[in-house]
């Protein structure tokens, strides 16, 4: 059209390409500046917390050296502070939680993604999300009152039959006529069960999401070759979802390490360096903070902040690794048409 016009009017001015960049209107400039200001505020607040924690770690490490990480006792009276025992306790509780949560969340995710009838699938996914929304203090009460009696009996059974493994040992006579129940309560084992309830929904949600993205073409090909359902799951779904399994579990681990109130409700605090999850008495970093912040002087408060900083660094590292693993597992998602 324009060509005919131009040929009809050869004297017309040459078209100049319009400048694509228009000056921003006032409202746009306000929008960009305003949202940048908000983002800067949020950045200042969040980065400020991280920096504040990092800076309060400086005097602590200056005073106690790196022995702070290995010293087991927390005795402000003797000026001996260290998080060796609570670090071990934190990881013991998290390990017990994962021992329960990993198989259960993997199998539940498989059930929801593969075996559940299609019409209840959405409901099951909502239920898993609901499980994640239940407050941790509720799981604490559940573990403390409902699970503890059964779990301590199970701990006794483990001690009686697997007591030759140091991991299952308890300082009590397993075959005593009257069972020393108190030795088997308030342990990392029971706290781990309650924490597992918080890990399961997180891990399960990630795994289920990745499983349901398994390439349908490969699934159908496996079925067409005569594979059983489990054959399809083993050869298609699980290899495809490997990243989701690892990543989901690590996200759950990050949650398990930072959990406070369920742990504080259940455990009886102790500062012994031990890996005896079935026995009474353990502690975690979050439990240490919750128990000791009240009477802390400024120096001890800095030590508690340092403990919190160490915990934050650990969860941050785990979460970052998990995000990388999950992201990599999804990169091949578009490979199948």
């Amino acid at each position, binding site marked *: 059209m324009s060509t005919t016009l131009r040929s009809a009017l050869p004297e017309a001015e040459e078209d100049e390409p319009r400048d694509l960049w228009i000056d*921003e*209107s006032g*409202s*746009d400039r*306000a929008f960009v500046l305003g*949202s*940048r200001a*908000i*983002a800067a505020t*949020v950045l200042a*607040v*969040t980065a400020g*917390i*991280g920096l504040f924690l990092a800076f309060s770690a400086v005097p602590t490490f200056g005073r106690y050296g790196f022995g702070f990480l290995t010293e087991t006792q927390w005795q402000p009276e003797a000026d001996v502070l260290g998080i060796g025992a609570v670090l071990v306790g934190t990881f013991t509780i998290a390990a017990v939680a994962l021992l329960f949560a990993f198989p259960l969340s993997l*199998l539940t995710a*498989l059930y*929801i993604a593969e*075996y559940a009838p299609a019409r209840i699938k959405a409901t*099951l996914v909502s*239920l898993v*999300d*609901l499980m994640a*929304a*239940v*407050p*941790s*203090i*509720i799981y604490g*009460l*559940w573990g*403390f*009152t*409902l699970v503890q009696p059964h779990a301590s*009996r*199970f701990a006794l059974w483990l001690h009686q039959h697997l007591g030759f493994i140091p991991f299952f040992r308890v300082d009590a006579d397993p075959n005593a006529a009257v069972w020393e129940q108190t030795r088997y309560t308030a342990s990392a084992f029971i706290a781990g069960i309650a924490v597992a*309830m918080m890990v399961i929904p997180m891990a*399960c949600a990630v795994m289920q999401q990745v499983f349901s993205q398994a390439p349908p073409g490969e699934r159908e090909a496996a079925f067409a070759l005569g594979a*059983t*359902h*489990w*054959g399809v799951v083993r050869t298609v779904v699980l290899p495809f979802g490997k990243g989701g399994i690892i990543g989901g579990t690590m996200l759950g681990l*990050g949650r398990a390490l*930072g*959990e*406070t*109130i369920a742990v504080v*409700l259940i455990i009886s605090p102790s500062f012994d360096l031990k890996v005896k999850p079935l026995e009474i008495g353990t502690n975690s970093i979050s439990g240490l*903070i*919750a128990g000791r*912040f009240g009477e802390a002087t400024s120096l001890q408060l800095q030590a*508690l902040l340092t403990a*919190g*900083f160490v*915990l*934050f660094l650990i*969860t*941050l590292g*785990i*979460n*970052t690794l998990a995000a990388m693993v999950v992201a990599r597992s999804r990169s091949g998602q578009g490979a199948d048409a």
Partner: protein
Amino acid sequence: MSIDLEENPTVATPRPVRTSVRAEPSSADSVPMHERRLLSRSTAEQRFELIGCWVAAVALAWLVCGRLMPWHGPLVFTVVTVVLGVVLLAVITAVDAGWPEVVDRIVTTVITLAAGLVGLALVSTVLFIFAKGYRPLMHLNTFVDDMSGVGPRDPLDRGGVAHAIVGSLIEVGIAILVAIPLGIGTAVYMTEVGGRFARVVRTVVEAMTALPSIVAGLFIYTTLIVGLGLPRSGLAAAMALGVMMLPIIARASDVVLRVVPGNLREASLALGASRWSTVWHIVLPTARPGLATAVILGVARGIGETSPVLLTSGAATFMVTNPTEGVMNSLPLFIFSTVRSGEPIYIERAYGAAAILLAIVLVLFVTARLLARPRKGSR
């Protein structure tokens, strides 16, 4: 295909084989009809085997527990039943099928049982809290009274947790007033403006979602209460909750805004709309259900979080409505402090408060699901 079937009529009368897939006749009138087997359903034989196995397992477990072995208790009985059931099922399947089928059946059973166990744990948690906490809820004063002047031995028709409910609502209310504009504003900046600074913000915000809630509480405790010398108050607790919720809401909103289709934005800009009106009239309304879900789930998380308020709010036994003035109580904190008191009636009150807290979370959760639904339907 249909001619083929007419020539070989034996094909049309199949023997029921478990995994075989039957060819469906394309023209129904020319061939003798047979039932098309639903591949997803199990056959009558399989169902019969399944029921038989579990009945046998229960019977055998009854025999083993108590009669053959000195094992007692419902837990042991259940475990023995499950183990025997799986073994029996494997044996029965092995009678007329190969090894892959046996494994398939065992795995299916184990996966279903594990999912059932997780479901049982969730249901038992909810039922347990309501079963232990229903008695205080029977009294109206639980919802309208506070605990001032109520002793540990006073009956349940005196005192209540109104102060904790009000405290929770005020603290979470202030926290979301701070966290929602900042969180959603940051998410808008990260998705709609972009650039290098936005990437920095996104990295830091994602990193801060790893902040354990107790460390957020300790940060506020150290800076506001110890550092600035402010008293423990509802405001400090709200700040701790806000600091904890801010990265969560910002990250969730970022995810929601990123899935808004880009062609909507382009269409709006092509019509001459400014960036601001595109965000305000196109992007945010499109993402509204998702944003609402993100916010409500953040609120549910905040209202149930105990550790930040434990460090920052103090625990009042009376109604406090001014968040800047002195100690305040909240539902999680009330539960935490009374359940450890050792007084039976106090513990009962704690479970009552837990039931209220759980009910609030359930209501928030269902609201979030209902708000999220329209988006799912239009997809």
